[in-house]
Protein backbone atom coordinates (compact mmCIF):
# COMPACT_ATOMS: atom_id res chain seq x y z
CA UNK A 1 0.00 0.00 0.00
CA UNK A 2 2.67 2.48 1.02
CA UNK A 3 4.70 1.35 -1.98
CA UNK A 4 1.77 2.12 -4.23
CA UNK A 5 1.27 5.50 -2.60
CA UNK A 6 4.90 6.42 -3.05
CA UNK A 7 4.60 5.42 -6.72
CA UNK A 8 1.65 7.75 -7.12
CA UNK A 9 3.59 10.47 -5.33
CA UNK A 10 6.47 9.98 -7.76
CA UNK A 11 4.02 10.05 -10.65
CA UNK A 12 2.50 13.24 -9.26
CA UNK A 13 5.85 14.97 -9.06
CA UNK A 14 6.55 14.15 -12.68
CA UNK A 15 3.09 15.16 -13.94
CA UNK A 16 1.97 17.90 -11.59
CA UNK A 17 0.01 19.79 -14.24
CA UNK A 18 -2.04 16.74 -15.21
CA UNK A 19 -3.04 16.13 -11.61
CA UNK A 20 -4.14 19.71 -11.15
CA UNK A 21 -6.03 19.66 -14.43
CA UNK A 22 -7.90 16.55 -13.32
CA UNK A 23 -8.79 18.05 -9.97
CA UNK A 24 -11.93 20.04 -10.97
CA UNK A 25 -13.52 17.02 -12.59
CA UNK A 26 -12.63 14.72 -9.70
CA UNK A 27 -14.06 17.25 -7.27
CA UNK A 28 -17.22 17.52 -9.35
CA UNK A 29 -17.81 13.78 -9.21
CA UNK A 30 -17.00 13.62 -5.51
CA UNK A 31 -19.39 16.43 -4.60
CA UNK A 32 -22.28 15.84 -6.98
CA UNK A 33 -22.22 12.08 -7.43
CA UNK A 34 -20.52 10.53 -4.42
CA UNK A 35 -21.70 12.91 -1.73
CA UNK A 36 -25.37 12.09 -2.53
CA UNK A 37 -24.47 8.39 -2.29
CA UNK A 38 -23.16 9.10 1.19
CA UNK A 39 -26.24 11.24 1.81
CA UNK A 40 -28.37 8.20 1.07
CA UNK A 41 -27.59 6.91 4.58
CA UNK A 42 -30.55 9.02 5.69
CA UNK A 43 -32.63 6.12 4.39
CA UNK A 44 -31.55 4.33 7.56
CA UNK A 45 -32.06 7.34 9.80
CA UNK A 46 -34.85 9.63 10.93
CA UNK A 47 -33.50 12.64 9.12
CA UNK A 48 -34.52 16.16 10.01
CA UNK A 49 -32.98 19.19 8.40
CA UNK A 50 -32.17 20.71 11.78
CA UNK A 51 -30.14 17.75 13.04
CA UNK A 52 -28.32 17.10 9.75
CA UNK A 53 -27.18 13.74 8.44
CA UNK A 54 -24.82 12.97 11.32
CA UNK A 55 -27.08 14.14 14.11
CA UNK A 56 -30.22 12.26 13.08
CA UNK A 57 -30.97 8.98 14.78
CA UNK A 58 -30.53 5.55 13.24
CA UNK A 59 -33.72 3.60 12.63
CA UNK A 60 -32.31 0.65 10.72
CA UNK A 61 -34.55 -0.77 8.02
CA UNK A 62 -37.70 0.84 9.39
CA UNK A 63 -38.37 2.96 6.28
CA UNK A 64 -37.87 0.03 3.95
CA UNK A 65 -40.31 -2.03 5.99
CA UNK A 66 -42.83 0.80 5.97
CA UNK A 67 -42.57 1.00 2.21
CA UNK A 68 -42.85 -2.73 1.62
CA UNK A 69 -45.93 -2.87 3.81
CA UNK A 70 -47.60 0.22 2.44
CA UNK A 71 -50.46 0.24 0.01
CA UNK A 72 -48.26 2.06 -2.49
CA UNK A 73 -45.53 -0.55 -2.70
CA UNK A 74 -47.29 -2.91 -5.07
CA UNK A 75 -48.89 -0.13 -7.03
CA UNK A 76 -45.68 1.75 -7.84
CA UNK A 77 -43.62 -1.40 -8.31
CA UNK A 78 -46.19 -2.90 -10.65
CA UNK A 79 -46.58 0.33 -12.61
CA UNK A 80 -42.84 0.83 -12.92
CA UNK A 81 -42.29 -2.70 -14.18
CA UNK A 82 -45.27 -2.77 -16.54
CA UNK A 83 -44.47 0.60 -18.06
CA UNK A 84 -40.84 -0.40 -18.52
CA UNK A 85 -41.86 -3.74 -19.89
CA UNK A 86 -44.12 -2.05 -22.44
CA UNK A 87 -41.22 0.14 -23.48
CA UNK A 88 -39.04 -2.91 -23.81
CA UNK A 89 -41.59 -5.00 -25.66
CA UNK A 90 -42.71 -2.37 -28.16
CA UNK A 91 -40.13 0.38 -27.99
CA UNK A 92 -37.03 -1.77 -28.22
CA UNK A 93 -37.70 -3.80 -31.37
CA UNK A 94 -39.30 -0.89 -33.25
CA UNK A 95 -36.04 0.86 -34.27
CA UNK A 96 -34.48 -2.48 -35.20
CA UNK A 97 -37.38 -3.22 -37.49
CA UNK A 98 -37.21 0.26 -38.99
CA UNK A 99 -33.47 -0.06 -39.55
CA UNK A 100 -33.98 -3.37 -41.35
CA UNK A 101 -36.75 -1.92 -43.52
CA UNK A 102 -34.73 1.20 -44.31
CA UNK A 103 -31.84 -1.01 -45.26
CA UNK A 104 -34.02 -2.72 -47.83
CA UNK A 105 -35.04 0.53 -49.53
CA UNK A 106 -33.50 0.76 -52.98
CA UNK A 107 -33.87 4.46 -53.55
CA UNK A 108 -31.06 6.25 -51.70
CA UNK A 109 -32.73 9.68 -51.75
CA UNK A 110 -36.01 8.31 -50.44
CA UNK A 111 -34.20 6.44 -47.69
CA UNK A 112 -32.45 9.63 -46.61
CA UNK A 113 -35.73 11.55 -46.62
CA UNK A 114 -37.43 8.99 -44.40
CA UNK A 115 -34.52 9.08 -42.00
CA UNK A 116 -34.35 12.87 -41.83
CA UNK A 117 -38.06 13.16 -41.19
CA UNK A 118 -38.07 10.43 -38.57
CA UNK A 119 -35.38 12.20 -36.49
CA UNK A 120 -37.36 15.42 -36.15
CA UNK A 121 -39.50 14.56 -33.12
CA UNK A 122 -36.37 13.72 -31.15
CA UNK A 123 -35.37 17.37 -31.24
CA UNK A 124 -38.62 18.69 -29.85
CA UNK A 125 -38.57 19.15 -26.11
CA UNK A 126 -40.37 16.71 -23.86
CA UNK A 127 -42.55 19.47 -22.45
CA UNK A 128 -43.78 20.40 -25.93
CA UNK A 129 -44.33 16.78 -26.94
CA UNK A 130 -46.32 16.11 -23.79
CA UNK A 131 -48.21 19.35 -24.27
CA UNK A 132 -49.23 18.13 -27.71
CA UNK A 133 -50.20 14.71 -26.36
CA UNK A 134 -52.30 16.27 -23.60
CA UNK A 135 -54.01 18.54 -26.09
CA UNK A 136 -54.65 15.83 -28.67
CA UNK A 137 -56.07 13.58 -25.93
CA UNK A 138 -58.57 16.11 -24.66
CA UNK A 139 -62.29 15.55 -25.14
CA UNK A 140 -62.49 17.57 -28.34
CA UNK A 141 -58.90 16.97 -29.36
CA UNK A 142 -57.41 15.41 -32.45
CA UNK A 143 -57.37 11.80 -31.20
CA UNK A 144 -61.03 11.97 -30.27
CA UNK A 145 -62.07 13.39 -33.60
CA UNK A 146 -60.31 10.47 -35.26
CA UNK A 147 -61.96 8.04 -32.85
CA UNK A 148 -65.42 9.49 -33.46
CA UNK A 149 -64.81 9.49 -37.22
CA UNK A 150 -64.44 5.72 -37.01
CA UNK A 151 -67.60 5.46 -34.95
CA UNK A 152 -66.07 5.44 -31.50
CA UNK A 153 -67.10 7.55 -28.56
CA UNK A 154 -65.14 10.56 -27.42
CA UNK A 155 -63.76 10.67 -23.89
CA UNK A 156 -61.12 12.43 -21.86
CA UNK A 157 -58.41 9.95 -22.83
CA UNK A 158 -55.80 10.93 -20.27
CA UNK A 159 -58.22 10.72 -17.36
CA UNK A 160 -58.74 7.01 -17.80
CA UNK A 161 -56.24 4.75 -16.08
CA UNK A 162 -56.68 2.18 -18.83
CA UNK A 163 -55.21 4.45 -21.48
CA UNK A 164 -52.15 5.78 -19.78
CA UNK A 165 -49.71 3.03 -20.69
CA UNK A 166 -50.75 3.00 -24.31
CA UNK A 167 -50.45 6.76 -24.67
CA UNK A 168 -47.14 6.82 -22.85
CA UNK A 169 -45.60 4.04 -24.88
CA UNK A 170 -46.96 5.10 -28.25
CA UNK A 171 -45.85 8.70 -27.87
CA UNK A 172 -42.39 7.58 -26.77
CA UNK A 173 -42.04 5.43 -29.83
CA UNK A 174 -43.27 8.29 -32.02
CA UNK A 175 -40.65 10.58 -30.56
CA UNK A 176 -37.62 8.30 -30.49
CA UNK A 177 -38.15 5.73 -33.23
CA UNK A 178 -36.15 7.44 -35.95
CA UNK A 179 -33.34 8.62 -33.78
CA UNK A 180 -32.84 5.21 -32.19
CA UNK A 181 -32.34 3.63 -35.60
CA UNK A 182 -29.13 5.60 -36.18
CA UNK A 183 -27.07 3.26 -34.09
CA UNK A 184 -28.41 0.18 -35.88
CA UNK A 185 -27.92 1.73 -39.30
CA UNK A 186 -24.33 2.45 -38.30
CA UNK A 187 -23.90 -1.18 -37.37
CA UNK A 188 -25.51 -2.25 -40.65
CA UNK A 189 -23.17 -0.10 -42.70
CA UNK A 190 -20.29 -1.95 -41.07
CA UNK A 191 -21.30 -5.28 -42.56
CA UNK A 192 -18.93 -6.50 -45.22
CA UNK A 193 -20.69 -6.17 -48.62
CA UNK A 194 -18.80 -9.17 -49.93
CA UNK A 195 -20.96 -11.33 -47.73
CA UNK A 196 -24.01 -10.21 -49.69
CA UNK A 197 -22.33 -10.76 -53.04
CA UNK A 198 -21.22 -14.23 -52.02
CA UNK A 199 -24.70 -15.14 -50.82
CA UNK A 200 -26.23 -13.90 -54.05
CA UNK A 201 -23.90 -16.11 -56.04
CA UNK A 202 -25.08 -18.95 -53.84
CA UNK A 203 -28.64 -18.03 -54.75
CA UNK A 204 -29.86 -16.89 -51.33
CA UNK A 205 -33.18 -15.07 -51.34
CA UNK A 206 -33.51 -11.62 -49.88
CA UNK A 207 -35.24 -12.87 -46.78
CA UNK A 208 -32.46 -15.38 -46.21
CA UNK A 209 -29.87 -12.63 -46.61
CA UNK A 210 -31.61 -10.55 -43.98
CA UNK A 211 -31.84 -13.55 -41.70
CA UNK A 212 -28.32 -14.89 -42.15
CA UNK A 213 -26.24 -11.78 -42.82
CA UNK A 214 -27.98 -8.54 -41.86
CA UNK A 215 -29.45 -9.63 -38.55
CA UNK A 216 -26.34 -11.40 -37.25
CA UNK A 217 -24.41 -8.27 -38.19
CA UNK A 218 -26.29 -6.14 -35.69
CA UNK A 219 -26.84 -8.72 -32.96
CA UNK A 220 -23.91 -7.53 -30.80
CA UNK A 221 -25.31 -3.99 -30.89
CA UNK A 222 -28.79 -5.27 -30.05
CA UNK A 223 -27.48 -7.22 -27.08
CA UNK A 224 -25.48 -4.30 -25.67
CA UNK A 225 -28.44 -1.95 -25.93
CA UNK A 226 -30.72 -4.60 -24.46
CA UNK A 227 -28.46 -5.00 -21.43
CA UNK A 228 -28.45 -1.26 -20.92
CA UNK A 229 -32.22 -1.20 -21.23
CA UNK A 230 -32.66 -3.95 -18.68
CA UNK A 231 -30.26 -2.14 -16.36
CA UNK A 232 -32.55 0.85 -16.57
CA UNK A 233 -35.74 -1.17 -16.27
CA UNK A 234 -36.71 0.42 -12.99
CA UNK A 235 -35.77 3.89 -14.14
CA UNK A 236 -38.68 4.62 -16.38
CA UNK A 237 -38.55 8.10 -17.91
CA UNK A 238 -40.38 9.65 -15.02
CA UNK A 239 -40.10 13.24 -16.24
CA UNK A 240 -42.51 12.23 -18.94
CA UNK A 241 -44.83 10.52 -16.47
CA UNK A 242 -44.92 13.69 -14.39
CA UNK A 243 -45.85 15.71 -17.46
CA UNK A 244 -48.57 13.33 -18.59
CA UNK A 245 -50.21 11.99 -15.47
CA UNK A 246 -52.85 13.38 -13.12
CA UNK A 247 -54.40 12.03 -9.92
CA UNK A 248 -57.14 10.26 -11.92
CA UNK A 249 -54.66 7.84 -13.41
CA UNK A 250 -52.28 7.25 -10.47
CA UNK A 251 -53.55 3.67 -10.47
CA UNK A 252 -51.63 2.89 -13.61
CA UNK A 253 -49.28 5.86 -13.96
CA UNK A 254 -47.66 6.37 -10.59
CA UNK A 255 -44.15 4.89 -10.71
CA UNK A 256 -41.44 4.67 -8.07
CA UNK A 257 -39.68 7.88 -9.10
CA UNK A 258 -42.84 9.95 -9.27
CA UNK A 259 -43.87 8.61 -5.89
CA UNK A 260 -40.48 9.62 -4.49
CA UNK A 261 -40.81 13.07 -6.03
CA UNK A 262 -44.30 13.65 -4.65
CA UNK A 263 -43.71 12.33 -1.13
CA UNK A 264 -40.22 13.73 -0.87
CA UNK A 265 -40.38 17.11 -2.51
CA UNK A 266 -43.55 18.37 -4.12
CA UNK A 267 -46.33 17.41 -1.71
CA UNK A 268 -44.60 16.51 1.52
CA UNK A 269 -41.03 16.30 2.72
CA UNK A 270 -40.58 12.74 3.97
CA UNK A 271 -36.88 12.77 3.15
CA UNK A 272 -35.78 9.59 4.88
CA UNK A 273 -38.69 7.48 3.73
CA UNK A 274 -38.42 8.53 0.07
CA UNK A 275 -34.66 8.12 0.08
CA UNK A 276 -35.23 4.54 1.19
CA UNK A 277 -37.70 4.05 -1.66
CA UNK A 278 -35.23 5.54 -4.15
CA UNK A 279 -32.43 3.38 -2.82
CA UNK A 280 -34.57 0.29 -3.25
CA UNK A 281 -35.07 1.27 -6.88
CA UNK A 282 -31.36 1.88 -7.55
CA UNK A 283 -30.46 -1.41 -5.94
CA UNK A 284 -32.90 -3.44 -8.00
CA UNK A 285 -31.65 -1.68 -11.12
CA UNK A 286 -28.07 -2.47 -10.35
CA UNK A 287 -28.84 -6.11 -9.70
CA UNK A 288 -30.80 -6.33 -12.96
CA UNK A 289 -27.93 -4.77 -14.90
CA UNK A 290 -25.37 -7.20 -13.51
CA UNK A 291 -27.77 -10.09 -14.02
CA UNK A 292 -28.45 -9.16 -17.64
CA UNK A 293 -24.76 -8.78 -18.31
CA UNK A 294 -23.97 -12.17 -16.78
CA UNK A 295 -26.74 -13.83 -18.71
CA UNK A 296 -25.64 -12.29 -21.97
CA UNK A 297 -22.03 -13.28 -21.34
CA UNK A 298 -23.15 -16.84 -20.73
CA UNK A 299 -25.40 -17.26 -23.75
CA UNK A 300 -23.92 -15.02 -26.44
CA UNK A 301 -20.44 -13.88 -25.50
CA UNK A 302 -21.58 -10.25 -25.75
CA UNK A 303 -21.04 -8.20 -22.67
CA UNK A 304 -21.04 -4.64 -21.49
CA UNK A 305 -18.31 -5.06 -18.88
Amino acid sequence: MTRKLSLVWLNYKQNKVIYWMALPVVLYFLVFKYLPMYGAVIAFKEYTVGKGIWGSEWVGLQHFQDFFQSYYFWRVLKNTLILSFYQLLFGFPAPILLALLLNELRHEMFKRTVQTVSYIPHFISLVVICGMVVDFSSRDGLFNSIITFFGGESSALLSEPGNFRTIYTASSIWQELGFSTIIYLAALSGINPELYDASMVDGASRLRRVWHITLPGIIPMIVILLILRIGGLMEIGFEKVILLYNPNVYDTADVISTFVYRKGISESAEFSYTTAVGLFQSLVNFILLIGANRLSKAVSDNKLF
Partner: protein
Amino acid sequence: MTIKRTIGEKLFDSLNVLLMVLLIIITLYPLWHVLNASLSDSNRLMAHSGLLLLPDGFNLDSYKLVLSNPSILSGYRNTLVIVVLGTALNLLFTILGAYTLSRKSFMLRNPIMLAIVFTMFFNGGIIPTYLLINNTLHLGNNLLALIVPGLVSSYNLIIMRTAFQGISESLLESARIDGAGEMRILWRIVVPLSMPVIAVMILFYGVGHWNSWFSAILYIRDRDLYPLQLVLREILIQNSTDSMTTSAAMGDKEAIGESVKYATVIVATLPILFIYPFLQKYFVKGVMIGAIKE
Protein backbone atom coordinates in the same frame (compact mmCIF):
# COMPACT_ATOMS: atom_id res chain seq x y z
CA MET B 1 -24.75 -6.88 -60.04
CA THR B 2 -28.49 -6.82 -60.54
CA ILE B 3 -30.67 -9.83 -60.31
CA LYS B 4 -34.21 -9.93 -61.57
CA ARG B 5 -36.63 -9.41 -58.73
CA THR B 6 -39.26 -12.03 -58.06
CA ILE B 7 -42.90 -11.05 -57.71
CA GLY B 8 -42.69 -11.51 -53.95
CA GLU B 9 -39.76 -9.17 -53.75
CA LYS B 10 -41.50 -6.54 -55.84
CA LEU B 11 -44.52 -6.79 -53.59
CA PHE B 12 -42.31 -6.43 -50.54
CA ASP B 13 -40.57 -3.40 -52.01
CA SER B 14 -43.85 -1.64 -52.72
CA LEU B 15 -45.21 -2.45 -49.27
CA ASN B 16 -42.01 -1.21 -47.72
CA VAL B 17 -42.22 2.10 -49.56
CA LEU B 18 -45.86 2.42 -48.58
CA LEU B 19 -45.00 1.78 -44.95
CA MET B 20 -42.29 4.42 -45.03
CA VAL B 21 -44.63 6.98 -46.57
CA LEU B 22 -47.08 6.19 -43.79
CA LEU B 23 -44.30 6.71 -41.25
CA ILE B 24 -43.52 10.11 -42.74
CA ILE B 25 -47.16 11.12 -42.51
CA ILE B 26 -47.55 9.93 -38.93
CA THR B 27 -44.39 11.76 -37.94
CA LEU B 28 -45.13 15.02 -39.67
CA TYR B 29 -48.88 15.36 -39.41
CA PRO B 30 -49.09 16.25 -35.70
CA LEU B 31 -46.58 19.04 -36.27
CA TRP B 32 -48.47 20.25 -39.34
CA HIS B 33 -51.69 20.16 -37.34
CA VAL B 34 -50.19 22.33 -34.61
CA LEU B 35 -48.82 24.80 -37.13
CA ASN B 36 -52.20 25.12 -38.85
CA ALA B 37 -54.07 25.43 -35.58
CA SER B 38 -51.75 28.21 -34.44
CA LEU B 39 -52.45 30.15 -37.60
CA SER B 40 -56.20 29.60 -37.47
CA ASP B 41 -58.89 31.97 -36.28
CA SER B 42 -59.50 30.97 -32.66
CA ASN B 43 -63.31 30.88 -32.82
CA ARG B 44 -63.39 28.81 -35.98
CA LEU B 45 -60.75 26.53 -34.49
CA MET B 46 -63.05 25.84 -31.54
CA ALA B 47 -65.84 24.78 -33.86
CA HIS B 48 -63.54 22.71 -36.00
CA SER B 49 -63.03 19.03 -35.40
CA GLY B 50 -60.91 16.48 -37.16
CA LEU B 51 -57.80 16.91 -39.26
CA LEU B 52 -56.57 20.35 -40.20
CA LEU B 53 -54.98 20.29 -43.61
CA LEU B 54 -54.76 24.09 -43.85
CA PRO B 55 -55.33 26.91 -41.34
CA ASP B 56 -59.01 27.56 -40.69
CA GLY B 57 -59.37 31.32 -41.14
CA PHE B 58 -55.86 32.75 -41.23
CA ASN B 59 -55.08 34.82 -38.14
CA LEU B 60 -51.89 35.86 -36.35
CA ASP B 61 -53.48 37.18 -33.16
CA SER B 62 -52.32 34.30 -30.98
CA TYR B 63 -48.73 34.94 -32.03
CA LYS B 64 -49.06 38.57 -30.98
CA LEU B 65 -50.25 37.43 -27.56
CA VAL B 66 -47.49 34.87 -27.15
CA LEU B 67 -44.68 37.13 -28.32
CA SER B 68 -45.75 39.94 -26.00
CA ASN B 69 -46.09 37.66 -22.99
CA PRO B 70 -43.54 38.63 -20.33
CA SER B 71 -43.20 35.04 -19.03
CA ILE B 72 -42.29 33.74 -22.47
CA LEU B 73 -39.78 36.52 -22.95
CA SER B 74 -38.12 36.08 -19.56
CA GLY B 75 -38.20 32.33 -20.12
CA TYR B 76 -36.34 32.73 -23.38
CA ARG B 77 -33.81 35.00 -21.72
CA ASN B 78 -33.18 32.62 -18.81
CA THR B 79 -32.89 29.64 -21.11
CA LEU B 80 -30.40 31.51 -23.27
CA VAL B 81 -28.24 32.29 -20.24
CA ILE B 82 -28.39 28.67 -19.11
CA VAL B 83 -27.61 27.29 -22.56
CA VAL B 84 -24.64 29.61 -23.19
CA LEU B 85 -23.08 29.63 -19.73
CA GLY B 86 -23.93 26.00 -19.03
CA THR B 87 -22.58 24.66 -22.28
CA ALA B 88 -19.36 26.67 -21.96
CA LEU B 89 -18.72 25.25 -18.48
CA ASN B 90 -19.73 21.76 -19.62
CA LEU B 91 -17.14 21.95 -22.38
CA LEU B 92 -14.38 23.23 -20.12
CA PHE B 93 -14.90 20.49 -17.56
CA THR B 94 -15.42 17.72 -20.07
CA ILE B 95 -12.31 18.69 -22.04
CA LEU B 96 -10.16 18.83 -18.90
CA GLY B 97 -11.48 15.50 -17.70
CA ALA B 98 -11.24 13.78 -21.05
CA TYR B 99 -7.71 15.02 -21.64
CA THR B 100 -6.27 14.02 -18.29
CA LEU B 101 -8.02 10.66 -18.39
CA SER B 102 -6.63 9.99 -21.84
CA ARG B 103 -3.00 10.55 -20.75
CA LYS B 104 -1.17 7.29 -20.25
CA SER B 105 1.33 9.01 -17.98
CA PHE B 106 -1.45 9.75 -15.48
CA MET B 107 -1.28 6.86 -13.04
CA LEU B 108 -4.69 7.44 -11.48
CA ARG B 109 -6.57 7.46 -14.75
CA ASN B 110 -7.97 3.95 -14.51
CA PRO B 111 -9.29 4.12 -10.94
CA ILE B 112 -10.82 7.54 -11.62
CA MET B 113 -12.39 6.32 -14.85
CA LEU B 114 -13.87 3.35 -13.01
CA ALA B 115 -15.28 5.61 -10.31
CA ILE B 116 -16.87 7.80 -13.00
CA VAL B 117 -18.38 4.90 -14.92
CA PHE B 118 -19.82 3.55 -11.66
CA THR B 119 -21.89 6.72 -11.28
CA MET B 120 -23.58 5.93 -14.59
CA PHE B 121 -25.17 2.87 -13.04
CA PHE B 122 -25.62 3.80 -9.44
CA ASN B 123 -26.54 7.07 -7.77
CA GLY B 124 -27.68 8.45 -4.45
CA GLY B 125 -31.16 9.21 -5.72
CA ILE B 126 -33.09 12.42 -6.18
CA ILE B 127 -33.74 13.19 -2.52
CA PRO B 128 -30.10 13.21 -1.30
CA THR B 129 -29.12 15.17 -4.42
CA TYR B 130 -31.92 17.64 -3.79
CA LEU B 131 -30.89 18.06 -0.14
CA LEU B 132 -27.26 18.59 -1.15
CA ILE B 133 -28.03 21.28 -3.70
CA ASN B 134 -30.89 22.98 -1.91
CA ASN B 135 -30.00 22.70 1.78
CA THR B 136 -26.25 22.18 1.91
CA LEU B 137 -24.98 24.24 -1.01
CA HIS B 138 -27.87 26.73 -0.87
CA LEU B 139 -28.19 26.90 -4.63
CA GLY B 140 -31.98 27.02 -4.45
CA ASN B 141 -33.62 29.71 -6.55
CA ASN B 142 -30.38 30.28 -8.44
CA LEU B 143 -29.76 29.54 -12.11
CA LEU B 144 -26.47 27.94 -11.06
CA ALA B 145 -28.52 25.06 -9.62
CA LEU B 146 -29.46 24.22 -13.20
CA ILE B 147 -25.86 24.28 -14.39
CA VAL B 148 -23.42 23.14 -11.72
CA PRO B 149 -24.97 19.77 -10.79
CA GLY B 150 -24.70 18.68 -14.43
CA LEU B 151 -21.25 20.00 -15.28
CA VAL B 152 -19.98 16.73 -16.71
CA SER B 153 -21.95 13.92 -18.29
CA SER B 154 -20.10 10.64 -17.89
CA TYR B 155 -21.34 9.51 -21.28
CA ASN B 156 -19.99 12.60 -23.05
CA LEU B 157 -16.76 12.37 -21.11
CA ILE B 158 -16.21 8.85 -22.40
CA ILE B 159 -16.95 9.89 -25.98
CA MET B 160 -14.47 12.73 -25.80
CA ARG B 161 -11.82 10.67 -24.07
CA THR B 162 -12.07 8.08 -26.83
CA ALA B 163 -11.59 10.82 -29.40
CA PHE B 164 -8.57 12.24 -27.57
CA GLN B 165 -7.01 8.81 -27.32
CA GLY B 166 -7.13 8.61 -31.08
CA ILE B 167 -4.71 11.50 -31.48
CA SER B 168 -1.24 10.23 -32.29
CA GLU B 169 1.02 10.12 -29.28
CA SER B 170 4.09 11.06 -31.29
CA LEU B 171 2.53 14.37 -32.25
CA LEU B 172 2.07 15.27 -28.59
CA GLU B 173 5.54 13.95 -27.79
CA SER B 174 7.19 16.20 -30.32
CA ALA B 175 5.33 19.18 -28.90
CA ARG B 176 6.58 18.19 -25.46
CA ILE B 177 10.16 18.05 -26.76
CA ASP B 178 9.68 21.53 -28.17
CA GLY B 179 8.93 22.61 -24.62
CA ALA B 180 5.14 22.89 -24.68
CA GLY B 181 3.42 22.38 -21.33
CA GLU B 182 0.31 20.20 -20.87
CA MET B 183 -2.05 23.19 -20.99
CA ARG B 184 -0.50 24.39 -24.21
CA ILE B 185 -0.66 20.93 -25.77
CA LEU B 186 -4.30 20.61 -24.81
CA TRP B 187 -5.51 23.97 -26.12
CA ARG B 188 -3.17 24.32 -29.10
CA ILE B 189 -3.05 20.77 -30.42
CA VAL B 190 -5.60 18.40 -28.92
CA VAL B 191 -8.60 20.75 -28.96
CA PRO B 192 -8.10 22.07 -32.52
CA LEU B 193 -7.67 18.50 -33.75
CA SER B 194 -10.90 17.44 -32.05
CA MET B 195 -13.23 20.09 -33.37
CA PRO B 196 -15.76 17.61 -34.82
CA VAL B 197 -16.27 15.82 -31.53
CA ILE B 198 -16.35 19.14 -29.68
CA ALA B 199 -19.11 20.33 -32.02
CA VAL B 200 -21.05 17.19 -31.13
CA MET B 201 -20.55 17.91 -27.43
CA ILE B 202 -21.77 21.50 -27.85
CA LEU B 203 -24.91 20.10 -29.43
CA PHE B 204 -25.53 17.39 -26.86
CA TYR B 205 -25.03 19.72 -23.92
CA GLY B 206 -26.75 22.71 -25.57
CA VAL B 207 -29.89 20.84 -26.55
CA GLY B 208 -29.90 19.19 -23.14
CA HIS B 209 -29.97 22.59 -21.44
CA TRP B 210 -32.57 23.90 -23.85
CA ASN B 211 -34.93 20.99 -23.14
CA SER B 212 -34.37 20.65 -19.44
CA TRP B 213 -37.19 21.55 -17.07
CA PHE B 214 -37.24 19.14 -14.12
CA SER B 215 -34.32 20.59 -12.19
CA ALA B 216 -35.95 23.99 -12.53
CA ILE B 217 -39.06 22.62 -10.82
CA LEU B 218 -36.89 21.34 -8.02
CA TYR B 219 -34.78 24.42 -7.42
CA ILE B 220 -36.31 27.55 -8.93
CA ARG B 221 -39.06 29.37 -7.07
CA ASP B 222 -39.04 32.87 -8.58
CA ARG B 223 -41.14 33.14 -11.70
CA ASP B 224 -38.63 35.61 -13.13
CA LEU B 225 -36.03 32.87 -13.14
CA TYR B 226 -38.16 30.22 -14.85
CA PRO B 227 -36.52 28.77 -17.94
CA LEU B 228 -38.63 28.58 -21.09
CA GLN B 229 -39.59 24.91 -20.65
CA LEU B 230 -41.12 25.61 -17.26
CA VAL B 231 -43.18 28.46 -18.69
CA LEU B 232 -44.25 26.11 -21.47
CA ARG B 233 -45.29 23.51 -18.94
CA GLU B 234 -47.58 26.00 -17.27
CA ILE B 235 -49.18 27.00 -20.54
CA LEU B 236 -49.35 23.61 -22.25
CA ILE B 237 -49.82 21.09 -19.45
CA GLN B 238 -51.34 23.04 -16.62
CA ASN B 239 -53.49 24.95 -19.05
CA SER B 240 -52.93 28.39 -17.61
CA THR B 241 -53.18 30.76 -20.51
CA ASP B 242 -54.95 33.31 -18.32
CA SER B 243 -52.00 35.65 -18.20
CA MET B 244 -52.27 36.07 -21.96
CA THR B 245 -56.02 36.20 -22.38
CA THR B 246 -56.97 38.58 -19.60
CA SER B 247 -58.39 41.18 -21.93
CA ALA B 248 -60.72 38.71 -23.67
CA ALA B 249 -64.37 38.11 -22.73
CA MET B 250 -65.15 34.93 -20.80
CA GLY B 251 -66.48 32.96 -23.78
CA ASP B 252 -63.61 33.96 -26.03
CA LYS B 253 -61.06 33.11 -23.40
CA GLU B 254 -61.30 29.41 -23.96
CA ALA B 255 -61.11 29.78 -27.71
CA ILE B 256 -58.15 32.12 -27.62
CA GLY B 257 -56.49 29.94 -25.01
CA GLU B 258 -56.53 27.03 -27.45
CA SER B 259 -54.84 28.85 -30.29
CA VAL B 260 -52.41 30.51 -27.89
CA LYS B 261 -51.29 27.05 -26.83
CA TYR B 262 -50.58 26.08 -30.40
CA ALA B 263 -48.75 29.31 -31.10
CA THR B 264 -46.67 28.72 -27.99
CA VAL B 265 -45.61 25.30 -29.26
CA ILE B 266 -44.51 26.82 -32.53
CA VAL B 267 -42.66 29.73 -30.94
CA ALA B 268 -40.84 27.35 -28.61
CA THR B 269 -39.98 24.78 -31.25
CA LEU B 270 -39.17 26.87 -34.29
CA PRO B 271 -35.63 27.83 -33.26
CA ILE B 272 -34.69 24.17 -32.88
CA LEU B 273 -36.38 23.15 -36.13
CA PHE B 274 -34.61 25.96 -37.96
CA ILE B 275 -31.15 24.88 -36.93
CA TYR B 276 -32.13 21.23 -37.10
CA PRO B 277 -30.86 20.59 -40.65
CA PHE B 278 -27.46 21.88 -39.61
CA LEU B 279 -27.43 19.92 -36.37
CA GLN B 280 -28.60 16.67 -37.77
CA LYS B 281 -25.38 15.29 -39.17
CA TYR B 282 -23.46 16.17 -36.01
CA PHE B 283 -25.97 14.35 -33.89
CA VAL B 284 -25.72 11.32 -36.10
CA LYS B 285 -21.95 11.50 -35.78
CA GLY B 286 -22.22 11.82 -32.00
CA VAL B 287 -24.41 8.77 -31.66
CA MET B 288 -21.99 6.80 -33.82
CA ILE B 289 -18.93 7.87 -31.82
CA GLY B 290 -20.83 6.99 -28.68
CA ALA B 291 -21.49 3.55 -30.05
CA ILE B 292 -17.82 2.64 -30.30
CA LYS B 293 -17.00 0.04 -27.74
CA GLU B 294 -13.62 0.26 -26.09
